[in-house]
């Protein structure tokens, strides 16, 4: 069954299998999903590595991402230009990191990128406030938001600069037992 497909060369499929956590069948299925987002833009023949990028507005309307409050940040973190335009490589990369076989360290790196709204490689108090508002649909009072952000930074910040660097974030994640199961999208 695997020899009859004409979308990818065998070498390309081998490369995808070794670089992501997906099997051959899953990669072909992902290509099908990518194609049906924009059938006139995405070619069925990927053997010559076409340079096709889909805009972020199409990706965030996928059923798996549609109601996720962080959907635009997720797509931006995996795009090469930082604007959310994903090529097929980035698309596969995104779902590979979010699959259940990706290890904790890899997921922590990308989770840090997602929650870092101003991309300065630190999660400061404003980033935390935006995260919290997205999580609770802005239904907490401003004092409650302020209190929660202060307590969160106080708990996780180790070097005392009142913002979270990647080391602080990873240390906090390593003590959260549910992280691997919640940071997971099934496709």
């Amino acid at each position, binding site marked *: 069954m695997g020899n009859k497909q004409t979308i990818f060369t065998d070498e390309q499929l081998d490369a995808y299998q070794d670089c*992501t956590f997906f099997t051959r069948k899953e990669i072909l299925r992902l290509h099908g999903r990518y194609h049906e987002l924009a059938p006139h833009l995405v070619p069925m023949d990927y053997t010559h590595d076409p340079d096709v990028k889909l805009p972020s507005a199409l990706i965030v309307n996928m059923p798996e991402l549609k109601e996720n409050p962080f959907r635009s940040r997720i797509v931006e973190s995996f795009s090469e*230009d930082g604007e959310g335009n994903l090529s097929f490589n980035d698309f596969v990369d995104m779902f590979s990191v979010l699959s259940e076989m990706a290890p904790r360290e890899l997921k922590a790196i990308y*989770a840090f990128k997602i929650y870092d709204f101003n991309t300065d490689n630190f999660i400061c108090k404003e980033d935390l406030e935006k995260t919290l508002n997205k999580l609770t649909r802005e239904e907490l009072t401003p004092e409650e938001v302020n209190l929660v952000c202060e307590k*969160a930074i106080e708990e996780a910040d*180790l070097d005392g600069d009142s913002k979270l660097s990647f*080391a602080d974030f990873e240390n906090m994640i390593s003590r959260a037992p549910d992280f691997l199961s919640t940071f997971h999208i099934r496709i």
Partner: protein
Amino acid sequence: MDWNGSQRHGSAMGGYPSYPSPQESLRLRRRPTNVADQSSPQFNWNPDRKEDERRQDLKELPLPMALKKSIWQVQQMKIPAVSRWQSWKMQKSKTLKRFRESSGGALAYVALWRRVLQKIGGHFGGGVQSYFLFLRFLVVLNFLSFLLIASFVLVPSIVFQSHNSGNNNTVNISAGKEECTTYDPNPQGLVHFYTYFIDLLTGTGFMEYSYLFYGYYNNTEVITNDFSYNIPLAYLLTAGFYFIFCLICIVIRMGSAVRIAVKTGGKAVGGYSTLVFTGWDYGLQGDRAVRLKQNSIRYQLQVDLEEERIKLKAASLTLAQIVGLYSLRAFLNLIVLALIGGSFYGIFLATEFSQGYQGTDFVSLVVEYLPSIVITAANFLVPFLCDQIALLERHSPSTTVILALLRAVFLRMISLGVLLFTLWSQITCRTAERGTCQPCGYNHTLYPCWETRVGQEMYKLAMFDFITVIAVMILVEFPRRMVVDHCSCKLVKFVGRQEFVVPQNVLGLVYGQTVVWVGALFCPLLPVINTVKFVIIFYCKRITLFYNCRPADRTFRSTSSNFFFLLVLLFGWMLACLTLIYSVAVIHPSMSCGPFLSLTTMWRVVPNSFYSLSDTTREFLLFIGSQAFSVPLFMLSCVVLAYVAALASVYGQSVSLLRAQLKLEGRDKKFLVKQIEELSSVTKRREQNF
């Protein structure tokens, strides 16, 4: 900056991988990919490392996909100089790895109910999913126990009874008195048609003298030249192994729950940051599920903030207020204890009345079920009243939940214990006149075959539990949802849809499983009945979850609660083990039925068959039981325990040391940066002065 991929193979204690510096990682994501640049992280081209390790490193690199592919291409081009044998081996290992990956995907389909559980977890969260995972564990446990019992007790009994006329069987007739050996379970004369229905529900009549209950099994002992099988010994040892098997399964499952708790440092420290960063479930789909999850996160945060406020307020109470609060709490606890004691007395009375009643009409059905009815009613009313009382106690929300749970557990387990105690005291004439137990050693007038009666009692408990679950679902939950959906008055909207309360449901499962454990010695087919019952309950609960319920506002911490559920299950196991030991070692088995009718206690079959073993086996077993073996074994296990405890404390200390070291490194970094700034400003000022 070198990217040393070998740091990936870390234990939890290994050093952090060297994460590319902020500027570099940004550049990685923005620059076009095919340019090999010296400033971007270099991949470790060490050719000595195995191909599997390199492939795993490539998957775990946080680089853009196209860059990973070009690294892969370069890796492929590096053909190491290997012989033909080695290249054939590499190719075969590659195919094997592909095959293992695809079969792993296929095996996932075989796991029972995997898709359903994922859907439940996505829509209702981890707490509800943990209930269904617990139910699945119990289904598998019961099914495996049934296979154990069937292969060692049921099938041999069937085989031997069908070859009953063979001359190699020895059936011991009990040399007891006339009054002790009469046992006639078959009903006499005409029976009404509805008697069959009553018999199905109570285990009497046509069901009593069948493979379902203890009384049907004989004490056949088959001895041929090359094969011997002793049914009583098999019966007893199978019961023992069944209990040990269940204990091992529970302990293994507890071990994995405990390991997670130890890894995360015990308490769920960092409550706010963990909730904000790991609270969102990325797998949620559907507008309704997302909205509910957002509500539940908001509710959890508000509850946490409220707890802080309460703690602050509690710390600021005056002495008079504290004394008043504690005396109020003591008084309310006394009321709770009185309620629980009252329900125990009610169970005792109901059991005594029900055991003495003889009749065959419909009223007798109700009387037979009286103990089950009283237990279920008590388990319904008393927790409800305790919840109302707990509102007056003014504890913090989490303490209230834990207290309610502990009270419910205590009530359920001890009420079952009271029922068993009443039964056993009736069998051993604790409450009747002395004379009735003299001839046979047990109460032969009420119980010609007391083990079957106990088995019937447990069967009735299990049946009634099942009927209650189905009846509550049909008569309470479906109508409630219809009323809520179609009626729009304020009271109805306030009450709202049914909430799926996880702890009460789990306690129901633990109660059902404890009943099966207690009854398994007397009713060998009870595990398979329980398997079918739990499977039906799974599907019914799933239907009621999706049609009638809304998720609980309070998110249940699934990791710590898993451990708690298994702990309660273990407590039920201990209760059942206690009854097993008491029945096997103390009470005289009935002389009119069952495999043990010629012995003084059930345990005696083991020493009796001990002497038929070969000499070497006998000496080996005697040696194991003697002090020369057990005392050194005990000392050795103490030494091993002390070593493991010391190792655990050393690991804990290392973890806290590393954490402190992280903090110090951050401060060092800030200090050095400040020093650099000072030095550069001093040199600049000096240059300006020249």
